[in-house]
């Protein structure tokens, strides 16, 4: 089995338009959550989100191209460009054949759907733009990143709600580890912050109207975000031979299914995924210094996740730093694991432990070191990133420093 390393990273999200500004915001414990701006927001009860403000696609793309790009595709292309540029890779010849793209997304081109449903149902129009289908399809982001970068190997989209990008990065990891690909461009992208997108979530009554406070006794729900993060996963020897700057190693990955409830999380499913990821990475519980939690800020998730962590790590669970960066960038649903992997890499590479902000009050059901409100500087050698999706689909990635 090949070793797999990360040689590039890119992002755009509510905390920043690139990796450097995003990490700076995390280090400063800044919130990207604010009052959202889009049509009909006055008819929503939930008005806050991690929306990317002052974003002008015309600064990034030619006008002719924009007609093909839903907002979630735009985010993916921007993040992929930054990641690939950092890796220094150019995809030509044989490398191009053995390099592909796997992204996670839950909503795909939801903005395009929302706009065009509005046009035909509300405005009574009988004609939609000819590119509605190629814009809204869930694989649009993958396909455009493949086309823009000459990536001709295995490419597909993974959609498992809130675990989409962890599942996607896991598949990319497996493809490189098995030798089926040399390089995989992977991560996730999401853009659900529109009237229909938020209205649907409002119906579930799990959204907070005043802020995302994971693990805090006063938490009252999740807050959505949008954006993308993209990574270059590369076979270790390939990276080493060309003298690439290696950011971290992906040491393991595991998935599990609760086979229980369509929305309620399960301790058992989460525990099995974390344990299996450690086994896959050949890491002991004591090796883990930081966990980027799923930490949605809902009553159920944070309590369940705390129990799962305590069951796996036992006495060591008191010593592990566990933070939810969703408190800053919001929950990017199908893109969230990707943005959260940035915090994992920063922990390994720079010893920057991103905080859980908005933390007000201790909750005995969440008795972990949640790195409240302020970032910490501490060296760690191995980390995991949790994602537990609606539908009980869990995906945990383990990373090690190199």
């Amino acid at each position, binding site marked *: 089995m090949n070793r797999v390393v990360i040689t590039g990273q890119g992002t755009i999200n509510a905390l920043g338009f690139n990796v450097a500004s995003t990490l700076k915001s995390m280090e400063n414990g800044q919130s990207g959550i604010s009052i959202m701006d889009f049509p009909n927001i006055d008819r929503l009860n939930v008005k806050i989100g991690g929306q990317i403000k002052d974003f002008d696609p015309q600064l990034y793309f030619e006008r002719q191209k924009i007609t093909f790009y839903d907002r979630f595709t735009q985010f993916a292309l921007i993040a992929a460009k930054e990641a690939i540029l950092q890796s220094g890779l150019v995809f030509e010849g044989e490398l191009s054949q053995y390099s592909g793209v796997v992204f996670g997304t839950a909503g795909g081109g939801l903005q395009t759907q929302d706009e065009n449903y509005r046009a035909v149902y509300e405005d009574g129009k009988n004609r939609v733009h*000819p*590119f509605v289908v190629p814009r809204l399809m869930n694989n649009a982001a993958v396909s455009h990143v493949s086309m823009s970068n000459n990536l001709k190997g295995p490419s597909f989209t993974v959609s498992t709600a809130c675990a989409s990008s962890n599942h996607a990065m896991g598949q990319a990891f497996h493809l490189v580890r098995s030798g089926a690909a040399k390089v995989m461009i992977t991560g996730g992208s999401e853009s659900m912050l529109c009237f229909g997108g938020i209205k649907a979530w409002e119906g579930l009554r799990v959204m907070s109207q005043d802020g995302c406070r994971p693990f805090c006794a006063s938490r009252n729900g999740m807050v959505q975000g949008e954006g993308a993060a993209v990574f270059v996963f590369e076979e270790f020897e390939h990276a080493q031979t060309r003298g690439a700057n290696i950011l971290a190693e992906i040491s393991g990955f595991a998935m599990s299914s609760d086979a229980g409830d369509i929305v309620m999380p399960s301790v058992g499913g989460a525990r099995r995924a974390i344990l299996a990821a450690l086994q896959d990475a050949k890491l002991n519980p004591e090796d883990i210094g930081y966990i980027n939690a799923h930490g949605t800020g809902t009553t159920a998730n944070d309590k369940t996740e705390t129990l799962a962590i305590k069951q796996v790590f036992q006495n060591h669970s008191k010593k592990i730093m566990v933070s939810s960066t969703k408190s800053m960038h919001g929950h990017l649903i199908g893109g969230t694991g990707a943005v959260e992997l940035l915090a994992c890499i920063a922990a390994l590479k720079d010893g920057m432990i991103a905080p859980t902000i908005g933390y007000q009050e201790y909750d005995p059901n969440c008795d972990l070191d949640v790195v409240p409100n302020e970032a910490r500087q501490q060296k760690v050698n191995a980390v995991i990133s949790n994602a537990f999706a609606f539908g009980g689909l869990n995906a945990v990635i383990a990373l090690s420093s190199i």
Partner: protein
Amino acid sequence: MSISVQDKVLSIIAEQAMLDISDISLNMSVEDLGLDSLGLVEAIFSIEEFFSINVPFNANDPSASEFDISSVGAIITAIEKLVLKECN
């Protein structure tokens, strides 16, 4: 009426093909304009939107459509007929 249809169709085609109107002549084909199939579909969409007409164009097999796209001039003539029909 026909002048303005021609001008509008030309400006839509020019925008889609990223050409100056002055560079487009009536005997040019879609290929000459450098329009691919999606570009043509988008131009027809813009024409339909502007004139509030339905253009019987089948992207599956353009040659099988009753809508003649053999040249810029042919497209304009066909649109003029459709606009006239819509007016009546």
